């Protein structure tokens, strides 16, 4: 069978076209920011997560903020459970203990257990990257499936934190259990 390799010339020409500027990462983090906002709609925090009825809902980013403006743009003017949303960024976990949700953007796995110990048993929804720090112990972990962002969720860890996760969200995530991982 002859195959017209000459047509590959097209491709050579096509490849000359140059890419424009921009970062391949930011789209992913725009989507992840939208995920975070969505998670908050599907999780119920216990009353002890807040000190009073008007306290804002705090979302913390631990480490360098990978979202750019995306997270701020998403939560601007929004409320979660009638609470105003406030963003906080810090490199120190201690600063974020008053948050209801913390995204762990630290990739140093050595720090993982130290970081998560801070949030242990507190009513904080911890979110991390599956291949980043905090994969053990974070309640939700993002992972990539080819071009798409997926998440896994540890319902037992959520329960320990006193958080109720709606079944719709559990259905969409990949269910994992800390104890099962520990056994491996």
């Amino acid at each position: 069978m002859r195959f017209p390799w000459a047509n590959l010339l097209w491709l050579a020409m096509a490849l000359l076209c140059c890419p424009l500027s921009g970062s391949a990462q930011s789209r992913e983090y725009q989507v992840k920011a939208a995920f975070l906002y969505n998670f908050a709609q599907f999780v119920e925090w216990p009353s002890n997560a807040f000190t009073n009825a008007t306290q804002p809902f705090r979302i913390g980013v631990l480490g360098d903020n990978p979202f750019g403006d995306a997270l701020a743009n998403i939560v601007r003017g929004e409320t979660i459970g009638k609470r105003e949303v406030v963003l906080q960024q810090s490199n120190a976990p201690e600063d974020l203990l008053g948050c209801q949700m913390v995204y762990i953007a630290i990739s140093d796995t050595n720090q993982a257990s130290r970081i998560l110990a801070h949030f242990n048993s507190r009513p904080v929804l911890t979110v991390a990257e599956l291949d980043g720090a905090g994969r053990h112990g974070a309640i939700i972990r993002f992972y990539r499936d080819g071009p798409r962002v997926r998440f896994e969720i540890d319902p037992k860890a959520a329960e320990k934190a006193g958080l109720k996760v709606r079944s719709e969200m559990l259905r969409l995530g990949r269910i994992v259990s800390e104890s099962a991982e520990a056994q491996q």
Partner: protein
Amino acid sequence: MGQARQSGAGILAGAWNASLRLLLLSLLAAGTAVAADTASSEDVLVFKSMTLAELMDVDVTTVTRTPQKFSDSPSAVQVITGEGIRRSGASSIPEALRLAGNLHVAQKGSHTWAISARGFNTDLANKLLVLIDGRSVYTPLFSGVFWDQQDYLLEDIDRIEVVSGPGGTLWGANAVNGVINIITKSAKETQGLYLEGGGGSELRGFGAIRYGGAINSNVFFRVYGKYLNRDAAVFPNGDGAGDSWWMEQGGFRLDAEPSSQDRFTLQGDAYYNNKNLPTGGYSEANGNNVLGRWTRVFSDTSDFSLQMYYDRTHLRNDVPANDFAPAGVLREDLHTYDLDFQQRFYLGERNEIVWGLGYRFTRDIVDDAPALAFSRSRLDQHLYSGFIQDRVALLENVWLTLGTKIEHNDYTGFEYEPSGRLAWVPKDGHTLWGAISRAIRAPSRFDRDLRFPTPGAAPLVENLLVGGTNFQSETVIAYELGYRTRLADRVSGSISAFYNAYDNLRSTSSSPPPALFGLPLYFDNNLEGETYGFELSVQYQVLDWWRVQANYTLLKEDIRVKSGRTDFNNALNETADPEHQVGLRSSMDLPGNIELDLGLRWIDSFVFNDVGTPATVPDYFELDARIAWRPTRNVELSIVGQNLLHDHHLEYVISSPNPREEIERGVYARIAVQW
């Protein structure tokens, strides 16, 4: 003379239909549609408006031609999810396609199907483009799809995008009335061992195995194999129709992400099936394909992909004797080589450009049967194509998409398929869109090269029916208007209305004098007409554990012979379509890890061409049901009932003298295990 000719015509039409049928007996014919239209806004606020499920479908690397968000896509797209397929109990791709309200899916026999969108669901339905992971699977033999040859491990199908309406601008010829885009999961998503097996009354026995593993942290693979064995359909009196069959298929997929910019996919499949025919004899098909794709993402707004594939199919069909020709065997070998490149980038802030080039080479070799032959036994064809599309942000919430495809095929030369689409998002969760597009169906071998019967087999005249040497492309200009909405997280819906104006549709003409008796008849482009209607679809999450879906489709058709022209079939041969279709589905998650799913459909009666005279397939209700239990996370036990309301019912007709076949109630049990 007139009388003689009429009766001769009747016999001839019968014979022609018979031969067609024979060709089709082995086919799961159908057509359908596809895919994705333009990309949508990358604005983070769009993501914000999406549900979790929608977010999970966002391609964060932005492969071109893949929709970013269906609710913004300015086209009539319906998506069948992998989860939806699993819960429906569908055991084949055609059965899964019943989930798309914008398709008419009719089972003709045990292994034959008619599938189309927006009408023209004839025996040789030819106005849909069907792709599996970017590989086109309609046959250039008649521009339709052999549905019995299109299969996959359903568990590993990610989703099926069904677009009704033209997709020619992006996808090219044949995407006249729609595009079906079957997308399998990446190997990374199908890790581990999966086993399934079961059997029942119609789906006699089946089994499948898949194993997915990682070669290293960036390279994943899977291999799979499956087998199934189906019972025959029945004649109207309930006797077995003798068209039982079995198939086996295996394949692999490898996905690598060597860097954050690059993705490579290599995949392939091989299959064999063996089908008994209701007219006696058998049909078998085998084939294999291999596809490679490289996608490079430069940035959010710039990427390209390069795809190549090779596909081979072999068909062998017993063709019984008729009044004009003895029995024989038709064999076909088709080789397809396809190369496709596309690139996306922004020109300034407002213009998103997508363009691409494609080349396809096909070699089709036919070994004739006396009753079904082609003028050239070997045909090599080259298809060159290019497209460009610009999506302009006219206002903050209004987008205009303009583009065209230009193709060159060996039959009709240059063809162009432009479209313009306008999308307006007045507020989050509401999209109003409109489109005007032109699409074509290029001639197939059937239209140009058919010889019936083989030269010399008939008395007096050489052939009775032949392809038209001057047969041109069929064209459509489609006007569409649609609205999609998501009312809160729990309710979503869409309505898509269309008005299609067709020209140069296929007709059958008599040869002018001095031809004897007007023979041979030949294919011509003497029909024109309009169709219009709308597709309505609503999804409602009633409770956390209960979801319902409803679909309604209206289709009106007026296809006629152009003034001053003639058609042997009186314009009846192009349509076999119900005016109304209704579908209702309910999915419940019950306590104790039990799932209960019900799917009810009502298909209106329709008229088909039975040897030049109209005949009717009556309307029918049918019900599918599935109950499943997961005793543990790894095991699923289910019982599926299909077509439960009747012992057997008629969905489609193969015209006389071929036997009518009806579809029986079927029940099967299944176990699936995953590690």
